[in-house]
């Protein structure tokens, strides 16, 4: 999926995550992670995000993550929403989500 605008999803409430996806001016994928459980789950969160981006062929984008202790399934849900919004698409691929 191609990122064409800024897409944001999620909240800053406990157990949630706010993710912003925007165009990265041709610099590929860049992930900025800020998390209250960075030390314990930072690597895991990055892995979940990278895995999703690969699965959905997102090759370019600046991903800003402000995590308040979200579970992996919440991170994926927020990322999916932000990516679809940023791609301006609504033909959701539920089978692969």
């Amino acid at each position, binding site marked *: 999926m191609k990122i064409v605008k800024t897409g944001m999803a999620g909240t800053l409430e406990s*157990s949630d995550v706010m993710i912003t996806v925007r165009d990265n001016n041709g610099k590929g994928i860049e992930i900025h992670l800020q998390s209250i*459980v960075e*030390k*314990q*789950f930072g690597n895991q969160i990055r892995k979940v995000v990278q895995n999703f981006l690969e699965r959905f062929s997102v090759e370019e984008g600046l991903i800003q993550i402000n995590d308040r*202790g979200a579970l992996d399934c919440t991170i994926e849900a927020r990322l999916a929403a932000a990516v679809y919004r940023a791609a301006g698409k609504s033909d959701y691929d539920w089978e692969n989500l």
Partner: protein
Amino acid sequence: MTENELGRMIPKKIDHIGKLLPFEGAYSHTPLVKKEKGNRELPKLNKLINSIEEVIVKTGLKDGMTISFHHHFRNGDKILPMVMNVISEMGIKDLTIAASSLTSAHSGLVEHIKKGTVKRLITSGIRGRLAEEISNGLMDIPVLIHSHGGRARGIETGQIKIDVAFLGVPSCDVYGNANGYTGKSACGSLGYARVDAAYAEKVVLITDNIVEYPNTPFSIHQDQVDAIVVVDEVGDPEGISTDAVRITKNPRDLLLAELVSEVVINSGYFEPGFSIQTGSGGASVATTRFLRQHMENRDIKASWALGGISGPMVKLHEDGFINRLLDVQSFDTEAIRSIGANRYHSEIDASYYANPLNKGCAVNKLNVVILSALEIDTNFNVNVITGSDGVIRGASGGHSDTAIGSGLSIIVAPLIRGRTSTVIDSVQTVITPGSTVDVLVTDRGIAVNPRREEIKARFMKAGLPVYSITDLKEKAEKIVGKPDPIKFRKKIVGLVEYRDGTIIDVIRQVEN
């Protein structure tokens, strides 16, 4: 024979008694009263000193000495910052601070440590910025973390030798009788401060409320006190006590409280005359509401409740469900009112409460205690001092004291907080050893320490959701995932002392 001051002939020595000292005048051996009483004026004796600085000079405080503070003013404490600022300006160095605990009101210590005014801390707990800085290696000497009972033991045995105790009090007369429940800065029980007053070399009271002599009933008494300083405010009332603690409306806390009450009533310890201690957390306080229901239904009354006392416990007392309250620390305005008003709401000091080496402390007579946890491991060891990121953010308090003293120690905590599991393979820091913990209550099930099989059988029979603690650990891990281990440096920033004075664990500097 010698002639004494009045001209009477006194023998120098008498067999079986020994040498005799002849009278040398009414004032010569009691220097404290000499000057004033000599005038035969009205008894205007007082110990008032004009300023903090003057009193520090008078106590003879020097580099390297140990000074103490109490934490009854909690987050509203103004005494420690006030005294430390003056000491710092006077240029005194290398002090040890032995505080009963340190709260978010004490972040200013960071600067005093950096400047060299303070070189060592002995305390039950540390929070906020000070705790973070210490975890990041602020101090050269590790902080000593003790329990409330352990501190009393340390002071009474001389392990902690206090040179000067600076004790804020909400009311005091000119001669040093002080209590905690009168005045605008009322904090209720002065239980922790009483140990310092009894054992410190020099005792300075600081108050914002001088009252008529004698200030009875008193917690700290005139015979212990060297000097008194009057200041504008000893604390910020809003930080000292919360408004009357109300039963929470948080559904998770209520769920936990209901489970805890089920655990208590099915444990075998719920019988006429039982005794109980609850903490100040939402779930712990709410347990009183559910217990009351069961007490009413089965016509069971408790003989006494211990510990930090809060409003809901007072209500049970005043409504006749608990005969007596033993109070080392009053958590809210209701408890503060009650300790002044109720004959059988008694103040106790920290040694009476939990000192393991005195002739008998209250925790030894306790049936049931409800405690919290930041982490608990599959061996039931409990951490209440460091967060899951390894940073100090809590207090040892009476945790290990009551866990071992009580017949039934219950730990209550949500299984998962955000993305952090409470039940893990090995806790970051052990405060209370698993061998003194009986039951874990989480919002997703209960676990019983295998050493208490008989209790487990009772819970199973009552249909409570009992799991093995390993099951709970795995259940949580399935939801949150497996965390990467926290990285620490070699440097030890904290020593955790068990209540008997041995070292149960160390806290290391966190890697950033």
